[in-house]
C-alpha cells in the first residue's frame, strides 16, 4: 500500500487535474490477468482518495499517473486506468478499481 498523488487524464493525453492525494493498494494477489484477447496483461489495484472528493470527481476510464512512484517494470510513472464505476462517499472520499498494464 502506498500514499501518493496522481495526475488525472481524461482521455489519456489530456490532463484534467494534478496532485490528487490517493492511497493505492494491490487488489490482485494471484498473478497477472489478461484482457483484449490475451494481448493486455494487467494487475488490479484499489485506489482511494485521501483528501475528500476531488474537485473534478474521478470516473470510469480515467487514466491516473502516479506523480511520485515509478512502475518497477517499466521505470516510467506508474499508470492506472479506472475500470469500473467509481464509488463516492458523500464528501468524504472516492474509491476506484484500477488496472495497471504489466510491462510496456
Amino acid at each position: 500500500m502506498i500514499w501518493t498523488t496522481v495526475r488525472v487524464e481524461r482521455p489519456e493525453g489530456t490532463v484534467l487535474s494534478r496532485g490528487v492525494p490517493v492511497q493505492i493498494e494491490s487488489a490482485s494477489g494471484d498473478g497477472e490477468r489478461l484482457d483484449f484477447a490475451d494481448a493486455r496483461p494487467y494487475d488490479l489495484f484499489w485506489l482511494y482518495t485521501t483528501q475528500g472528493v476531488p474537485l473534478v470527481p474521478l470516473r470510469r476510464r480515467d487514466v491516473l499517473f502516479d506523480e511520485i512512484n515509478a512502475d518497477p517494470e517499466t521505470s516510467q510513472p506508474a499508470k492506472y486506468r479506472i475500470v469500473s464505476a467509481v464509488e463516492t462517499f458523500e464528501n468524504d472520499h472516492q474509491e476506484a478499481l484500477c488496472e495497471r498494464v504489466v510491462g510496456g
Partner: protein
Amino acid sequence: MPTLPGQPDTFGALQAMQSLILSECLVGGQSPFAPLLSADAARYGVARAVFVGRPKDFSDAYLPQCCIYLPPSAHADTIQLAGFAGRARSTFDAHVLLLVDQRSDWYAAEQQILTLRDALWPVLLRHAQLGGNVPAVTASEALAGRGLCYEQVAGVQYRCFEAIWRIHQEWQIAGGRVL
C-alpha cells in the same frame, strides 16, 4: 520470372497492410483513425491509430482505432513445400479489427462503424498483392471475419468490425532442401 526471396516477410506484409489502410481507408478524404501522440507516433512509425498487433496498453485517446493482428489460431496459418527444390508457400489470415467508442452515443457509434466498414472493404478488395512492395507476397484476398461485433477492454465495451485479409507468400529456401 522474378527471383524469390529467401524467406517470408510477415511483418513486412503487415506493415504494407497498415500503410494501405492509412492511405486509402478514408472518410471524407481523410484518415478516420485517431492521431497518435508524438511518442507513440515515433514508437510505431505511423501518425494515426492503425496498429500492427493489438496494443498492450489500450488508450481511449486512440479511437477510432484499427488493429491488424494474427490471431492465436492453428487455422489462421498454413505452410507447405512446393516440390523438392525448396520452394515454400505459406498463407496467413490477418484480422483487421476496427474499434469505435460507443459510450456517449451508441447510435453515432453505429453509424461510425458502418462508415469505417464501408471505407475498409474497397481497400481490402482492391489490392491483389498488397501494393507489390513485399517480394514474398504473391497474392492477397479479403474475407468476411466476425463482421460487426463488440470487444470489451478494461471493463468497457467498444463497437467493432472485423474482416480477414488473407496473404499468400512464396519463397525459395536458400540452397534448397538438405539432408
